[in-house]
C-alpha cells in the first residue's frame, strides 16, 4: 500500500515536471521509453511512460516495458526509494533485493530523471 502510494506520488511529480520543470523537460527530450517498477511477486507496480516529452503512468506490475526495476518486496522498495540515494540502491542490489531487467542504462536514465524532480 505504502509503495503504491509512493509510486503514484512519483508519477504525479514526473507528469507535473514534464509540464513545468525546464531542466526535466530538456532532459527527457523526445525519448520514448517505458520503465516499470514492480515487486518480484507481481503484486505491486507501476509503469512510467515517457513519450516525446510527456509522461504518463499506469498502475500494475505486468506491463511490457524497456526496462524494469524489480524489488524483492514492497517494504524494501518503499524504504530504499524513499531514501533516494545511489548508495541505498547499491546496497539493496548487493543484498539481492533489487534487480534490473532489460538495459540497465535505461534505469540509470530514469533514476537521473527522478533526481531532477526531487
Amino acid at each position, binding site marked *: 500500500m505504502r509503495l503504491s502510494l509512493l509510486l503514484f506520488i512519483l508519477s504525479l511529480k514526473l507528469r507535473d515536471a514534464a509540464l513545468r520543470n525546464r531542466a526535466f523537460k*530538456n532532459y527527457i*527530450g*523526445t*525519448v*520514448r521509453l517505458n520503465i516499470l517498477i514492480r515487486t518480484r511477486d507481481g503484486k505491486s507496480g507501476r509503469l512510467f511512460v515517457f513519450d*516525446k516529452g510527456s509522461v504518463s503512468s499506469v498502475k500494475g506490475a505486468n506491463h511490457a516495458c524497456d526496462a524494469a526495476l524489480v524489488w524483492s518486496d514492497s517494504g524494501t522498495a518503499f524504504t530504499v526509494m524513499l531514501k533516494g540515494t*545511489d*548508495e541505498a540502491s*547499491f*546496497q539493496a*542490489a*548487493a*543484498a*539481492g533485493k*533489487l*534487480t*534490473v*531487467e*532489460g*538495459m*540497465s*542504462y*535505461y*534505469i*540509470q*536514465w530514469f533514476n537521473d530523471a527522478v533526481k531532477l524532480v526531487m
Partner: protein
Amino acid sequence: MTQILGGHLVGKYLKEIEKVDTVFCISGGHIESILDSFTEYEIRTVDVRHEQAAAMMAHAWSVYAGTPGVCLVTAGPGFTNAVTGIANAYLDNAPLVVLSGKHPLRDDLKGALQEMNQIDVIKSITKWAATCYETKRIPEYLSMAFRHAVSGRPGPVFLELPPDILNVRVPLAQVPMSARPTRKFTVHPDDWDLRQAADIINNARRPLFIGGSGVGLSCCSAALGQFIDRTGIPFILTNCGRGELPDSHPLSLWDVGNVGIQLGMMQADVVIAAGLRFNWLLQSGAIIPPATKVVRIDIDPHEIDRNRTADAGLVGDASSVLGQLVPLLKRGEHSAWTRDLRAASRAFLTSELELREKPSNPIHPIRLVAQIQKFVGEDAIYVIDGGDTCYFGLTGFSSREKAGVMATAAGLLGCLGTGIPFAMAAKLARPDKKVLLLNGDGSFGFNSMEFDTMVRRNIPVVCVVNNDQAWGMIKHSQELSIGAERLQCCELGVRPYEKMVEGLGGYGELVTRDEEIVPALKRAFDSGKPACINVITDPTVTSPATPLFYQSLKMD
C-alpha cells in the same frame, strides 16, 4: 670508398639500429629507394590496399609487438590517406613512426607531382614532424623520430624524405650512425606525493583501481600484480591496459564489465586511476562523486588534475610508480566490498547474463559474443570494431593475453574501420594466437578490401560481422532524438560480405540461426584462411553505449 643511396640509409638504420623487422606500406614512386632498402636489409613489408590501413597496422603493431610501429607512405594522396590512422594513434598515445615521401625540393612551388605542404597538415596530430634536407643526416633524423615517439607520453611522429636526398649516393663513412637504439627513460614521482598516495590507499574502505592504456604501454604486469596482491583492491583494466593482468584474475571486475566500472566509480571511497584519461566515457571525471578521493598516476603531468583535481598525483611510468608505491602500502583486504560490487553489478546485468545462455532467433549480439567466447576461449586475441558492437564485445569477451580484448573503435577518435588493420597486425605480431575480429557491418566497409592483403600475405584472421543491417548506434540514436519515422542515412540492408571475402580468396559463410554460429566458427578456423562469417543479428537491439553517445551530444 663505399657509397650508399640515401633511401638505403633508411633501411640500414631501421634494421641495424632500431631492429625494425616489419614495415606497413604501399608502394610509390617517391619512396622507391626506401622500398629497395627493405630488400637490401631484409625488412618484411606488409603492403596494404589503402594507406589508412598501413598507419593503423603500424599503430596496432606498437600495441601487440610492444615496439614502435613503422609505416611508409608515398607523397600527396599516400600521405593524406594515412592521416586518419595518424590522428587515431595521436589520440591513443601510440608510438607510431610515419615515414613519408615528398615532392622534389628541386621542383618546390613549380606544380610538382603530388606537391603539397604535408608538414602543416600533420603538425597538430603528431608529437614531432620534420623534413630531412640532407642525405647524410637521414639516420640522425630517424633517431630523433624514434626518440620522440617513445619518450614521455608516447605518440606518432612524422618524417618526410624528399627524392632529392633519397636518390643520391653519399660515402657511407661520412654518415654518422647512432650507436644504439632509442632509449626509454622513466620519470619518478616525488617522495612526498608517494607517501600521500599510500596514506590515502592504506585508509581506503571501498577502493577501486582502474588502469588504462598507460598501464599497457608501461608493460607493468609484475608491478601491478604486486600492487593488487598486496592491497586486495578490485580492479578493472581498459583499452591497451587490458590483459596486463588476466581478465579471469579473482579481483578483476571484467565479469561485470562496464556496469562494474560505473557502479564501482560511483560507490568507491578511493579511486586509483593509472594511465587513464578522464574523458567523455567517464563523463570527464564527473562520474566520480565529489567526496571520493582520487589518486592519479600518469606519465604526463598535465593529466594529473585534468577534469578532476586529484587528492594525490604521481607523475611517472605506471610500472615504475607502482613499484615505488608497493613498499609503502599495508597489506589490505577488501573482499566484502568486492563481493558487494560484483553482486550489485550482476543485479543490474540480469538480462544480459540471461541472454548469453539463451539461444535466440533472430540472433541477439550478446548471445553471438557468448557463443564466440565459448568456442574460441581465453587463449586468443579479440579485436572489436563498431559502435554498439564495441559494447557487446568488450563486455562479453575475455582473454589471458596482453591487450587481449581491444575495442579499437572505442578510443577517443571513435575511429571506425580500425578493426581489420588491428586484427591483421595482431596476427602478424603473435602468429601463434587465434585472432578473432568482431566487426559491425557499417565499420566493416571501411577497410574490408584488406582481406586482399590478408590473402596475399597469408594472415588468417577470422572476422565475424555482427550484421544488424545498419549503422546501428546512429540509427538507434536517431530513433531517440528525431524519431524512428525520420531515420536518415543509417540503414545498410543485408549484404553478402562473406561472398566478397570468398571472391578475394578467403573463406566465407553466412549465418542466420543461433545453432549455426559455433559450427561456422569451427569451419572458419579450420580453413586456415582469412575468413568472414556474416552473422545476421537482431536489428532492433540497442546497446547501453547508444544512449550514452546520444546524451553526450545533447546541448540543452
